[in-house]
């Protein structure tokens, strides 16, 4: 087993990835290194299967306990960067990474701002003064490329109504409809971490794919990273499920001219082209409120915040009463203007 750390060649301090400059920077002497130019120590490593969870920090010698998914972390004693190389090599080597664009301070500020915006969150929560911890985490994702061959047979109708004399006529035209569609999806992200809530991760999308970089270990310096818990084959059903609603809506959009649609035969053949192992940046915020812990996630590129905040019943009641009251008065006013009398 080998631990990778990033020590500044000038002063020996720890170097971390700087989300502003996109370089490996030294906090002490201000040295900046271009990540693409420094050699990646990973490539020289040999993959080993053993699941160690105890490491010794190279800087201070303290015991660093890690969970079996952790691929990168920070020594809790001296703050040194620790990258666990065996969890990033072999089939665990990420193909791509989107680095953080939002620093810890910016993330804190953005989160506080988001808390104040909540219309139903209790006032005590809005002050956002109980942030228990904020962690910059590279979450493992699979980016799927899926090709779909679709064939649909359907009965469509076009309905027209008109009046003639004392009768109302309803004319229904029936059609035999056939569509052959090729539908390709690229970079469909599915989160591969067991720890992260799938629903939460889905809401974090979209990630800006123009920021995708080929993986360099140095991007992880100063952040926490995880290795995937499920491989691309295991998550294929989830990916298929995710695009199935997109496919449905695409099929419907090709038949928009019909009033009603009845599928007689629908065949969707989803082909798994390949999936790329990618680390995506997420700020994870733990927040204490009313003795309960809430977890929020922030997209490390776009700053989008997701997670269920507590809901204040008083605010719900107040909003409900005012909205209903205003609607009631407006309805009264409308009926009065239509000549209905106010009471």
């Amino acid at each position, binding site marked *: 087993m080998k631990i990778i750390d990033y020590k500044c060649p000038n002063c020996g301090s720890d170097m971390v990835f700087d989300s502003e400059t996109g370089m490996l920077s030294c906090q002490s002497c201000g040295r900046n290194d271009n990540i693409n130019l420094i050699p990646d120590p990973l490539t020289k490593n040999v993959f080993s299967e053993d699941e160690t969870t105890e490491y010794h920090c190279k800087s201070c010698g303290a015991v660093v306990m890690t969970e079996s998914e952790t691929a990168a972390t920070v020594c809790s004693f001296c703050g040194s960067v620790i990258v666990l190389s065996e969890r990033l090599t072999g089939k665990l080597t990420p193909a791509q990474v989107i680095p953080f664009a939002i620093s810890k301070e910016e993330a804190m500020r953005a989160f506080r701002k988001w808390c104040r915006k909540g219309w139903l969150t209790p006032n005590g929560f809005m002050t956002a003064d109980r942030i228990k911890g904020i962690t910059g985490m590279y979450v493992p994702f699979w980016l799927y490329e899926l090709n779909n061959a679709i064939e649909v047979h359907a009965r469509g109708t076009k309905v027209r109504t008109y009046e003639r004399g004392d009768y109302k006529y309803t004319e229904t035209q029936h059609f*035999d409809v*056939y569509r052959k569609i090729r539908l390709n999806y690229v970079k469909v992200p599915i989160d591969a971490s067991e720890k992260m809530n799938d629903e939460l991760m889905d*809401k974090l*999308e979209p990630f800006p794919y123009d920021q995708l970089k080929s993986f360099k270990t140095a991007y992880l310096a100063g952040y926490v990273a995880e290795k995937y818990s499920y491989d691309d084959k295991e998550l294929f059903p989830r990916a298929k499920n995710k695009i199935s609603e997109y496919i449905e809506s695409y099929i419907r959009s090709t038949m928009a001219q019909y009033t009603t649609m009845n599928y007689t035969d629908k065949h969707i053949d989803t082909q798994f082209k390949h999936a790329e192992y990618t680390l995506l940046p997420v700020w994870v915020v733990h927040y204490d409120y009313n003795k309960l812990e809430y977890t929020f996630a922030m997209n490390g590129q776009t700053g989008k915040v997701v997670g269920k905040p507590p809901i204040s019943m008083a605010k719900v009641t107040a909003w409900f009463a005012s909205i209903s009251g205003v*609607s009631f008065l407006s*309805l009264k006013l409308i009926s009065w203007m239509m000549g*209905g009398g106010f009471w």
Partner: protein
Amino acid sequence: MRRSSAIVTFLCFFAVFLAFPLVMKTGEAAAAEMKQLVYDDAGLLNQEEYDELNVMANQYGVRRETDIIILTSKNTENADVEKMTEDFYDKHALGYDKPHGNAVILTLDMKNREVYLAGFYKAKMYLDDDRLDKVRAKIIPDIASGDYMLAFQKYIQTADKYMGFRPDMNPDNLLFNGWFQLAVSLIIGGIIVGMMAIRSGGRVTVNRQTYEDAGTSGVLEHRDQYLHTTVTKQKIAKNNSGGSGGGGTTSGGHSHSGSRGSF
């Protein structure tokens, strides 16, 4: 805290607003002088009921500037109920604003068990044949079962209510129904607050186009073959059916709207 105090103010304002018309109504009634509006020649009501109805008719009439009149008759001369109503109007020179003015008359012919409703002047405009038909439909069951007091109260209330709507509107339009308005407002409030609660946790902002490779995707083959056409027809229901009486003109030359029926 500022927001909640604003809400309390709003609710107080709302309560005052609700109470206001009631205050206005009693104030008006006290100021008006009492007229005889109930002519119970058939003796269907006792003294107590008679007084109560007369007060009620006076109160409601002021607001609509219309005399709301009830006539019951044993009809010993066996006159036609419509003719009886017209002659009664001519003879007594009824009307709120002037002799032969705004009035609505409900006549009960106890001999032939017939009922007639007539609206004069303002009441002719606001209580046209259709609306009088609606009033009649509401009170006929109570008259048939002998509950005259209840029927007369309903008549006064309904006539008053309908005169509050512009002549070209359907007074039974659901939109004008207070309970309907309340229900709709509560539903709107519930939906909006529900949406706020659901969206508080963030929402999905990707759609089917986000991950679609538009360059290589598309419809390869399509066929839309016409098969056949089916036609169904439905008779359009006409509203102005069943001419049960309608209006007319009195011998004194006053035209009126009307609705006639038996019980």
